[in-house]
């Protein structure tokens, strides 16, 4: 009993927990076969998508069921610019983010004032419009239903990312950096402004938060991250086609955030792990996969509506303040 509580106490220390998780991620690819590394790559891509939707859905509480659209824009930006103009994949990471972000800014500017379900319908339509446009092959760029083939490997000087293990590190470095940046944001006035809007928009406005500006910022940032995920996805598969960006993908991202817990970064990782591992584990009973998945979601909503790992408030902030005051005294 005493032993258990001591272990618990040790595990409660944030830096230790984080370093254990990081160590596990570093060691993992050297212990398993390529098949499991590939699963972890898609886990990483879903984690990034989950993090991107979490900004909009988790932090600000805006329903977005068209997020796959931004993922698609990132992937196609990478695919087209790489195959037509030979721009290196790594250079295309920021460009894909920018393209998706710009698109989000343009389409959401006029509709950002819509509330709840109304905004949801707009995002739903938007996701479909993007997919249909890709199928229709505008300006002969997107290759219609077949998509775009022959996308390069990312290369960094002499280092070419062409094996599973290298892709694994590429995606998880991106996810890691995103987590660091998003955690900083959560504890800044911008992260708080997002949360204030989610909690009570009228009170947030009366407290000095320009809700329009911060909602748009969330969409733009969320789209940018989804664009980055699209870039990695495109170069990993070496081809993109519209069927990878269906409404179902948007639903999966939505599930990732709901399963994990809205606004919780560890929660998103758990949700993404569940979504990417689930089909693999249940491969033998493929017929019943969706049945089990659906039941799991319903049970989740009934018994743990806040998610598996909801964001805890208070204690964490308290510690960081002690750190801060300690530093200012020194």
């Amino acid at each position, binding site marked *: 009993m005493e032993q258990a509580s001591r272990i618990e106490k040790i595990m409660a220390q944030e830096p230790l927990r984080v370093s254990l998780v990081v160590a596990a991620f570093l060691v993992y690819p050297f212990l398993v076969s390529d098949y499991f590394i590939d699963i972890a790559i898609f886990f990483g891509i879903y984690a990034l998508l989950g993090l991107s939707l979490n900004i909009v859905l988790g932090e600000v509480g805006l329903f977005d069921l068209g997020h796959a659209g931004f993922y698609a824009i990132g992937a196609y930006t990478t695919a087209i610019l790489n195959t037509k103009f030979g721009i290196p994949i790594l250079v295309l990471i920021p460009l894909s983010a920018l393209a998706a972000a710009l698109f989000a800014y343009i389409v959401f500017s006029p509709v950002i004032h819509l509330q709840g379900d109304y905004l949801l319908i707009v995002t739903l339509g938007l996701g479909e419009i993007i997919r249909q446009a890709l199928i229709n092959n505008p300006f002969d760029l997107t290759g219609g239903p077949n998509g775009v083939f022959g996308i390069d490997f990312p290369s960094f000087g002499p280092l070419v990312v062409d094996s599973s293990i290298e892709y694994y590190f590429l995606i998880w470095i991106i996810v890691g950096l995103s987590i660091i*940046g998003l955690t*900083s*944001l959560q*504890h*800044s*006035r*911008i*992260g*708080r*402004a997002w*949360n*204030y809007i989610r*909690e*009570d928009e*009228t*009170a*947030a*406005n*009366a*407290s*000095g*938060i*320009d*809700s329009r500006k911060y909602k748009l*910022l969330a969409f733009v*940032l969320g789209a940018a991250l989804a664009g980055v995920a699209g870039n990695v996805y495109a170069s990993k598969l070496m081809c993109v086609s519209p069927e990878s960006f269906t409404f179902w993908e948007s639903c999966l991202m939505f599930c990732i955030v709901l399963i994990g817990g809205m606004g919780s970064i560890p929660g998103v990782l758990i949700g993404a792990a569940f979504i990417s591992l689930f089909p693999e584990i249940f491969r033998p009973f493929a017929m019943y996969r969706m049945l089990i998945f659906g039941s799991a979601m319903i049970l989740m909503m009934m018994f743990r509506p806040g998610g598996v790992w909801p964001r805890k*408030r*208070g*204690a964490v*902030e*308290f510690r960081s*303040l002690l750190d*801060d005051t300690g530093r*200012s005294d020194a």
Partner: protein
Amino acid sequence: MHSGRRHSSGEVVLETKGLTKIFGGLIAVNDFNLKVYKGEILSLIGPNGAGKTTVFNVVTGIYRPEEGQVLFKGRDITGCKPHRIISYGIARTFQNIRLFPDMTCLENVMAGRHCRSSSGLFSSIFKTRRQRAEERDIRGISERRLEQVSLSRFRDELAKNIAYGSQRMLEIARALASEPDLLVLDEPSSGLNPRETEDLMAFLKNLIREEDVTILLIEHDMNMVMGISDWVVVLDGGRKIAEGTPEAVYADPHVIEAYLGKEDEDTGYGASA
């Protein structure tokens, strides 16, 4: 006009000129003129549906008036957005408390500092030195405000978990965190027990004495109105029907009529129907 006012310094903080707000066919506020002088506590009273909250919502930018102007420290703020108005120096509370329920008490107060801070996206992501210093300021000031309303012990408690009376005070602390020149309180004593109301009155009197702030409030509790106000304005049916010192308003036949109906039955509602 302000000759009878106890605390008046002669400087007008807030002024409305011919304010009119119409909802469909209903004239909620009709040609309303108000002057709030620096350093005073002005109470806006009136029966239910008199248009008091509508006046507040127009002043704090939630509604745009059909006619008239709102001047704050001489500047025309008519139709400005709520988030701008608080940055000009008018902070408010709501009749039905509006906190951020799933955030801590401290985070709730920190909301008031938003308009007084400026860190952007990149400095927040990369935690620049300036951003960290600003965060420390936000916390420090918010903690002091929390202490001022005696809620320091609930610092890391979620706002939804504290008692109703404490939630009211937390909302006031959030408003104060923005360092307002004018504090606009919509029925601050509603839902409070007599003791809590006493505490609130003492708190507001103390606030006026110690800080450079002016208070405009809507109130139903007559004890509080009489005990705290320097000046009382009475609204009925969207119009100002009387104003004066609490004592004068209390004795005004128009005010008694608005609240209780006319004494003379012949000219009352029964006869005209």
